[in-house]
């Protein structure tokens, strides 16, 4: 893209910034990520077990919803992560577009499937929760609808990138889409919210018990941490694969021990 050079210079990259980018080069990041992955898996397992224990064995039965409410311990973390990952993805994409750093594009690419997975889980668990609570698998509630659209945005990003073979081009095109999407997400959210309340009144607002039991909150937080760690671990695993795929002709790859053996 012709404008990148100008962009870089206008930012007047100082040496510290350049240093920082040096760290973010695939060659240094690849082994670093390899070292970090097991830790994140361990943390994910730890938080997960704790969260599940609290969720199933400590948190009391909900007065209104009975045991069905225990879906909350995966539904809410998945929903949070699906939104958060999109932001992170767009951040990396923007960085890649603006500064031409190779690694950022790879990070964005590797985050997208995990984000899509989270969005899907949110929809799936929400649907499975909705059936017993509302008597319908799906209602056109604002939050549900905007989650669905978020899922579509992820799918669009993945489809676009996989339809372009040249990875550099795929990164840049994906970045433009992610940025356009990030501008749109708040617009979509509020428009859907307004659309729904105009029609609906309060008939299908989420039936939340007003003061969530303290233990429930704890379970949810622990599970959210577990999901977070999971997302980091799995996207680091994927980004390592992507680095190998794309950098296979850089000298440093051939010197890796897993390649040499």
């Amino acid at each position: 893209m012709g404008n990148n050079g100008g962009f870089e210079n206008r930012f007047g990259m100082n040496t510290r910034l350049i240093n920082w980018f040096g760290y973010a080069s695939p060659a240094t990041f690849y082994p670093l990520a390899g070292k970090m992955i097991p830790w994140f898996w361990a943390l994910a397992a730890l938080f997960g077990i704790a969260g599940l224990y609290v969720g199933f064995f400590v948190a009391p039965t909900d007065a209104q919803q009975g045991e069905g409410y225990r879906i909350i311990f995966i539904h809410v973390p998945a929903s949070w992560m699906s939104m958060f990952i999109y932001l992170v993805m767009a951040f990396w994409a923007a960085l890649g577009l603006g500064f031409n750093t190779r690694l950022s594009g790879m990070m964005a690419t590797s985050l997208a499937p995990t984000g899509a997975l989270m969005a899907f889980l949110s929809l799936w668990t929400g649907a499975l929760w909705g059936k017993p609570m509302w008597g319908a698998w799906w209602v056109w509630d604002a939050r549900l609808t905007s989650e669905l659209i978020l899922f579509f945005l992820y799918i669009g990003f993945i489809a676009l990138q996989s339809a372009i073979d040249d990875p550099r081009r795929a990164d840049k095109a994906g970045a433009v889409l992610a940025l356009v999407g990030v501008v749109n997400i708040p617009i979509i959210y509020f428009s859907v919210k307004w659309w729904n309340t105009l029609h609906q009144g309060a008939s299908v607002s989420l039936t939340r018990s007003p003061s969530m039991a303290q233990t429930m909150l704890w379970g949810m937080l622990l599970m959210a941490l577990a999901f977070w760690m999971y997302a980091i671990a799995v996207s680091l695993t994927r980004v390592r694969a992507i680095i190998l795929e794309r950098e296979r002709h850089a000298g440093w790859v051939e010197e890796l021990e897993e390649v040499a053996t």
Partner: protein
Amino acid sequence: MNWGSASEFFAMGGHALYVWGSYGACALLMVVEPILARKRRSQALTELKREIRANQDSQDETTP
């Protein structure tokens, strides 16, 4: 402890299908996704090794 017995635990107060459907899907996907990611890496590795070997072979050919 909320549960008197294991069967009570699995029954989830009559919501077994929904609760275990959610947790099951979640567990399944969270097992499958890392496996796919790892497979992708090992595929990249084997491809790389094959290519390096091929390069070496062709170098052997050209430099007798």
